[in-house]
């Protein structure tokens, strides 16, 4: 009996409480999006009015589209940069490789606030106006480490003998890349791109400091509605985002299967 308590009941209860803490506010937010009340308060009476208001809110929709395009461009650039890097990485000397890798990972450990405003100062230093180029550059800097994590784990697991074999069988290096290396890296490229997309899509700090006047992204719109009197339209769009993210996550999870697991466990090697 005591063993049952220690091995099952207490751990399960503990996990349930922790998960309740994690999910309660999110669920409240989602439920309140379907509530009549303007102030997110009880009693609950079902209504879809915030969703129909959202459908007509062009500012929010436009911002969401901006965020999507920005995240897509960021993810593409990150994936290309990260793939090139891991392919070239092995030819570097050990100390060089370590240096380069810590340089790329650096933005993970510096508060984004600092990176954002140092880029703002760069723009002022070269006497330019804020523009989308710097927004994309900032997003690439902070998203690249995540794409890199995914690709590094994969390339370390890739057997170099495969490439050698292909070469010794007479395949050109381009052919080897196209037929052997690329397919082996593909799942990690998808996962890395997905991570970079999510980081960029969610990012507030970089966009907030660098975005030119008159343009906005979804996080910026959400922040300003929170600041200047929010409405449950924010709940509605949040619910839509959560839904879409989960759908993407499920699709990527299905395509990738174990390689996400590889990535999380990848640090072991």
């Amino acid at each position, binding site marked *: 009996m005591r063993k049952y308590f220690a091995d099952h009941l207490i751990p399960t209860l503990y996990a349930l409480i922790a998960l309740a803490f994690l999910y309660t506010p999110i669920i409240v937010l989602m439920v309140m999006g379907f509530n009549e009340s303007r102030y997110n308060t009880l009693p609950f009476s079902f209504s879809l009015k915030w969703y129909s208001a959202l459908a007509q809110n062009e500012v929010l929709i436009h911002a969401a589209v901006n965020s999507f395009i920005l995240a897509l461009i960021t993810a593409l650039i990150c994936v290309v940069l990260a793939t090139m890097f891991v392919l070239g990485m092995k030819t570097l000397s050990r100390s060089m490789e370590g240096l380069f890798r810590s340089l790329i990972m650096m933005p993970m450990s510096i508060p984004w606030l600092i*990176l954002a405003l140092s880029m703002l100062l760069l723009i002022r*230093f070269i006497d330019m106006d804020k523009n989308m180029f710097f927004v994309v550059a900032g997003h690439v800097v902070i998203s690249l480490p995540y794409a890199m994590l995914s690709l590094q784990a994969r390339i370390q697991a890739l057997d170099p003998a495969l490439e050698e074999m292909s070469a010794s069988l007479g395949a050109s290096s381009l052919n080897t890349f196209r037929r052997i290396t690329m397919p082996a890296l593909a799942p990690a490229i998808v996962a890395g791109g997905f991570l970079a997309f999510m980081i960029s899509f969610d990012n507030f700090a970089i966009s907030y400091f660098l975005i030119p006047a008159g343009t906005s992204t*979804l996080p910026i719109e959400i922040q300003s509605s929170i600041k200047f009197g929010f409405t449950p339209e924010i709940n509605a769009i949040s619910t839509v985002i959560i839904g879409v993210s989960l759908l993407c996550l499920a699709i990527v999870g299905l395509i990738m299967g174990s390689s996400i697991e590889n990535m999380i466990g990848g640090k072991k090697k």
Partner: protein
Amino acid sequence: MKRKKKLLTFPSIIVLTVFAILPLIIMLVYSFQSDSGAVGATLENYTNFFLKSVYLKLTYRTIINSLAVTIISLIISYPLAYFMAKKFKGLKNIVMILILIPFFTNQLVRVYSWLIFLQDGGVLNSFLQSVGVVEGSLGILFTQGAVVIGLVHAFFPYMVITIYLALERVDNAVLEASSSLGASKIRTFFQVVLPLSMPGVVTGIMIVFVPCLGTFVEPRILGGVNGTVIGTVIEDQFFEIYGWNFGAAIAFVLFAMVIISMAGLSRIGRRYDNE
């Protein structure tokens, strides 16, 4: 061929150098310029910062808040990670997925969800009123407490993952060896499991404490006027006061705090790695 492949690493390095290293250097340069328009390098921004008790108090508060978030996260995360690694079997993966899912929800949305949950007259308030725990309004929102709750919520899942990965690597045979040599369960835990999982704990602390130092959105939204921390002061310098050079100096102080805590923590981490 080898030379050509080496070139593949350069684009990433160039991007990082131009858009991360160079800006930080420029920020350092600006931090030694006066906001009053005087020409030439000056220490005035830094002396202003360190001589005014307001800023020192805010620095202190930022550190205390981040420490509180880290400690609470540790209290939640360690047992959870331990149960996942050592007690749960099939349940483990489900719990892991449930912990990962909120990562894919917007961070601002999560902060906002605490705002509507904790507000006076909000869901928690109504619930506690109906149970009879609280009369009238709750008064949690717009305090430091609300900020800490929101930040713990945002960061503790990272810690669960790092500690879980460390505990997963602790071989069960080691635990059996310890108990067959006569050690009690508690002794096994403190002398075997805990030291072996320390690298994960240290990484977890790093991954929670350091970003907490630089937060400015969560303190603003959940803390209101009581939420002022270094991050919000920096934001104000850039968006309200236009004291950019002073802002750059504060940002550099923050940067220094980040570097120092990272260096300190990785030193501690290395000690455990060697064992």
